């Protein structure tokens, strides 16, 4: 009997020894990386994943919108929340370890990483679809680079000498598998080079994207993105033409301004006016504009960003856009971001009309339509009387009110050479510092002037 037990024990031991495969277990929640680019279908899933990456709160899930507005506050917005890092952005006293700046920087490169992989593996997609799938990846990459260059570039493009201004590291194809590889210790490319990359990607996207594409990137959104880039370069003719292409493709493919201004916001499904919006549901996506602009009543933090009378009083009393503000805690709050789980508007058709109008006036042209017609489309929807012979200032004023707090604040203020809270447009403190963590790893990354 004792012997039997001993044998039993020995058999049990050897039984386990032979089970080496017990040490090779597979994660039930994921697939191997090599598998992710093995077929076109899987690659397209990675592309969808990259939209979610672009919609991270650190990028177009809100941060790049409210950070621009907060920095451009000029007495029209107050940060009253407890978080100190947004406060730094608002007061333009940003420390190099600011977490929002660091996350935006990293997240943008994550989008770029994914796009680079998609583009490099595009051969697994059916030939007929390759150009379009690659165009989507390029659109996402351009969107990420554009935010990077605006926030972290040494000076705006229009400051001149873009070839000698420090931009951000440029990477357009997959590098070594090991992320710690020295290959990734890239120096800053020039502002010019980064803009060239963005323009090349957006041009490709504009050509190859379909006119409509559910809530994914489409032709008119690529055109409008291009128009934004040209505005930063102060290339008004190119901006005008891109805006014009945007409007003509959009209006022949079912896009149009919604009738009521308020209906353009707080939607969980894109409106006819939304050329591109980050999708937010109660289960996916995030909207940090809601988090900070809205109030406790609607499930947000408690109105961390307040709108002051200085801004509120800029609207005519009968302006529908004024009616969108709501008052709580004794302050105004921006109603565009009032409700929970709503899409983050990235590009609305209204902007294209305003860009075309502005450029036409600047260039004394009427490509597409007259500036009056374009601007009055916007005004009449807001319940305001039409303008005749609209001046540049009138159009810019309309642009400011129409697009208020949608993320264009800082970029428009800078290119229009406006002072912000006593600082001139080219003040060092109106640019973000290169994040401390990046410079700790990569000493070849030079810091922006005004920071150490």
């Amino acid at each position, binding site marked *: 009997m004792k012997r039997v037990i001993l044998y039993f024990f020995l058999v049990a031991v050897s039984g386990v020894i032979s089970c080496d495969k017990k040490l090779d277990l597979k994660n039930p929640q994921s697939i191997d990386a090599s598998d992710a680019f093995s077929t076109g279908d899987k690659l397209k899933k990675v592309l969808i994943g990259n*939209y979610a990456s672009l919609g991270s709160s650190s990028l177009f899930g809100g941060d790049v919108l409210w950070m621009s507005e907060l920095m451009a506050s000029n007495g029209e917005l107050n940060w009253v929340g407890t978080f100190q890092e947004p406060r730094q952005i608002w007061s333009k006293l940003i420390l190099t*370890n600011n977490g929002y700046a660091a996350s935006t920087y990293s997240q943008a490169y994550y989008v770029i990483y994914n796009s680079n992989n998609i583009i490099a593996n595009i051969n697994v997609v059916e030939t007929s679809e390759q150009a379009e799938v690659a165009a989507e990846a390029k659109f996402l990459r351009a969107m990420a680079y554009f935010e990077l260059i605006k926030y972290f570039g040494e000076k705006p493009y229009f400051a001149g000498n873009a070839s000698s201004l420090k931009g951000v590291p440029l990477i357009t194809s997959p590098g070594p598998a090991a992320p710690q590889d020295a290959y990734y210790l890239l120096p800053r490319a020039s502002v010019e080079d980064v803009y060239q990359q963005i323009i090349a990607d957006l041009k490709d996207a504009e050509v190859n994207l379909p006119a409509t594409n559910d809530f994914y990137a489409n032709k008119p959104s690529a055109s409008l993105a291009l128009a934004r880039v040209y505005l930063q370069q102060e290339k008004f003719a190119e901006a005008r033409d891109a805006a014009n292409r945007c409007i003509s493709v959009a209006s022949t493919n079912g896009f149009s301004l919604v009738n009521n201004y308020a209906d353009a916001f707080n939607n969980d499904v894109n409106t006819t006016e939304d050329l591109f919006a980050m999708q937010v549901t109660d289960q996916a996506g995030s909207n940090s504009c809601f988090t900070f602009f809205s109030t406790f009543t609607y499930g947000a933090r408690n109105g961390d960003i307040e709108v002051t009378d200085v801004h509120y009083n800029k609207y005519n009393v009968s302006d529908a856009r004024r009616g969108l503000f709501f008052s709580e805690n004794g302050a105004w709050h921006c109603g565009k971001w009032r409700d929970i789980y709503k899409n983050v508007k990235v590009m609305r058709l209204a902007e294209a009309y305003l860009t075309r109008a502005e450029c036409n006036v600047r260039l004394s042209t009427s490509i597409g339509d007259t500036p009056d017609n374009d601007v009055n489309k916007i005004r009449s929807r807001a319940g305001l009387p039409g303008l005749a012979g609209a001046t540049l200032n009138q159009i810019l004023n309309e642009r400011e009110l129409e697009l208020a707090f949608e993320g264009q604040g800082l970029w428009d203020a800078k290119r229009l050479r406006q002072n912000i809270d006593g600082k001139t447009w080219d003040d060092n403190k109106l640019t973000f510092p290169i994040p401390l963590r990046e410079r700790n790893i990569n000493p070849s990354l030079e810091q922006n002037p005004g920071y150490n």
Partner: protein
Amino acid sequence: MRIVTLFLLAGMLLSLSKGWSQTKTVTGKVTDGSGTPIAGVSVLIKGTSIGMVTGSDGTYSLILPKGLTSLIFSSIGYEDQEVDVTSSPLNISLSHTTKSLNEVIVTGYGTQVKREVTSVISRVKGSDVQNMPVADLSQTLQGRAAGVFVEARSGKIGEEIKIRIRGTSSINGSNEPLYVVDGVPLVGGLYGTATSDINFDDIESFDILKDASAAAIYGSRAANGVILITTKRGKAGKTKFTVSSQYGIQNPTHKRGFLSAAEYIDLYREAATNTAKYHYNRGGNWMGFSSEADAIANMIRWIEGRFTRYSGYSDWRKVQTNTNWEDLAFNDNARLGNIEISAQGGTEKNKFYLSAGYSNQDGILIANNFKRYSLRFNMDNQVNNWLKLGLNMGLGKTVRQRVADDNEFSSPIEMVALAPITPPRDQNGEYYTTPTTTYYSALNELDNAENHAKSYRNQGNIYAESRLTNGLILRNELGLDLVNQSDERFWGSRTEWGAGTGGFAWAQWFRNTRWVTNNFLNYVTEIKSKHKIDATLGMSFENRYDEYAYVQGENFADESIRTLAGAGKITGGSSTHEENNLVSYFARVNYGFNMKYLLSLNARMDGYSGLGSNYKYGTFPSVSAGWIMSDENFMQNIKWLSFLKLRASYGTVGNNTGVGFYDSKAQYGSVRYGSSGAGLGITNFANDDLRWEKVTTADIGFEFGLLKNRIVGEFSWYNKKTTDMLLQVPTPSPSGTTSILANIGQMGNKGIEVSLTSTNISTRDFKWTTNFNIAKNKNEVLKLDGEQKEILPSNVRYTNAIIVGKPFGVFYSVKYAGVDPDNGDPIYYMQDGKTTTNVYGDAGKFIIGDPNPDWIGGISNRISWKGFELNILFQGVFGNQVSDAGGIFYSANCDWFDNQTRDQLKRWQKKGDKTDVPELRINRWGDFESPSMSSRYVYDASYVRLKDLTFAYNLPSTLTKKIKLSNARLYISGVNLLTITRYPGWDPEVNTDTNSSNLRQGLDFYAAPQIKSIVFGLSIGL
């Protein structure tokens, strides 16, 4: 009712025992082992205070009263002896006290006599800790074992307890010891510690394996030491019942104190005026005020508007409200109670131990509670002369009513931020919330939210022990640790999280199943009574399977329906499962020559599924040797030295907890986008070289006994070095990720440990023993990825850094230079350490504190006089700092509307004022920097604490016999009654649960103070 039954039962048993019926004289002589008479031995008739002391010839004579039959002999340096008087004369031989040396120590897959142990093992007896009114058994070890650092994060009850044995050895892996209960490793769950599921009245002993030689038998999981928990087992004999119960109250160790309403109004008005002046004169006046007076008027209007908003219905101008929000965070005299019943006994063939326990403890924080229900059944059956079978089975349920993390406004302590001018409730009796309260008031959670977590644990094993030949024993164990946890939460629409969603609920379930089988042979033999060999060879296989599911929903039809069944909309859900396997082989040989020269070899080989393909198996060897010098002839003349053993050990153990189940493979997981988009995204980057961390320890020490072992002690010096330490190596963002896990770092811990036990007085009635332990540990980060010398804090609040050559987690931030006496600005040191600046961003960065203690220790005194007993345990931690990250809000010279700590009254007010508190300014316009983390908020957190004070009375057996009990004990006991510290915050024993990690230590952020409790208890035996 149960107690009455027990009484009756006891009465029956007692009536069966026979007693003597006449008085009797008993005489005799007491000698030592060599026949020499011992004078001064106390001879006591058991159950009475009648006794005498032996004369110089060692003789005694006593008259035994009717019915009493036992004598107790005791003398310093000798073992007590209890003898039943059967005849007279009764001569007694007392043996020298070597009790602690002959103790049997549990070593993992075996046992060993303390005297022969060549590794470092600390033992804490269950009986020493079982009446402590704390929730988690690991808390009871605080101050009791040398080099074992125990810290409760805060006074929240039932939450994680941190234990560090000989310092921190890992950055990304766990630093907690491995707990093994009766041979089965304990696993954690979603929350709390596994140890909180165990009723510590059931524990016989804790054996803490500290050095590599002791721990190597647990291989790749032993790097942080191993705590072996042995539960109580039955002894043959009459069935003994024990009933014990305690009730008590608890309060916070300390309240911090905030501004009163009148002070708040004064200070914020002052801040408003200062801010206006600053804006007008120094801030550029971009608001365009026409004069300083204009600016002041504007600010005062604004701040008074805020006062009005924050005062609700009451009038702040009349100071109608003065709310102490700090007081509202706490329960006054929170209650605790518990009751345990156990029975043990059996025959030589069948022995059993049964117990049931119930514990119910309210937290000191409002809406915080911990309950534990436990059952245990341990059984041994001697089948025949070679086979023994047994069972250990513990069943437990814990129920926690939890509070939110420290950084949530819904955490009660966060209410200190609210203005004292705000009434807690409106005139309808509803709790105020924003905008009347400055921030969300946690009181709204009381009726409108739920946070319940339940944990069920089924832990135990069955075994068969076969004596195959003489000295050869095979033991087979099959064990299971099954943990089921659920966590259900609800937030009504009045709460912070439920607002905007019509009520929000969340439920998660977690199940962790660990099967383990241990099979090992043990062979003991003696050759020519010179060579003693004790060898163990075995294998083990473990499978761990984790399952997790959650669902969330919102928009509740009626807020009294708070389960997800009441949700109008399900807004999320997921389920996952994962598993790992561990295959192990282990061996140990203990060899003793003449029982003076001792050697021990240990090794374990572990194969672990979670590791990279290049490193599936690891081997962890160790060696130790000892020399019992006091047994050598040349030592025999040193009379005062009764025992001396030198020992040394060296070995390597591992830590595999830093690698997740599947971390070594590059993987893509699913990503949701939009209403239906299912995408893929990279979730992990590949690393085939991922492996366990290695900890190599050298240990040299000695054990000694002085004055006939009246004083026994131990000394150890160790040098512990972690290599292949896992690090999240930061990577440049263009690589696609911001960090990658790699086995690249090194860390060192060096230290000494001293423990002493002294029998100061031991007379018939009066006994006094002292236990003392102290340990010093010095931690040093030795290497990061080679080129990199530091990983600096990226977080602005929590500034722990990893810097080569410095202790792990030092605070690295700006050094505060106080206040500029000219203008009241806060100033900071520049990098030169001499000049100062008022621009925070320009200031230098320095090491401004260290969360690692230098010394930890404890001293306990146990004094008994007749039936009275007094136990006093002091515990101390020395040389560490705490960074009070909440200071940037509540000790912030009125930077925002958060109520301020009272030290802010010392603010700078006029030119020439010398103070550390800057001019009060409220940051309305962003003209100046708000306070950021600096040495201003870093404090010395050394403390000495009266950890345990127990005063007990054991009823004399003459009395207990009358009421038919075998013993009865009444006691009053206090935990944390006194804390001596210079830390100005709530409590120096703190580590906020917000983003807590190995690195984020020594941080305070609205963490609750520790619990101070007083309990009354009663324990009776039948």
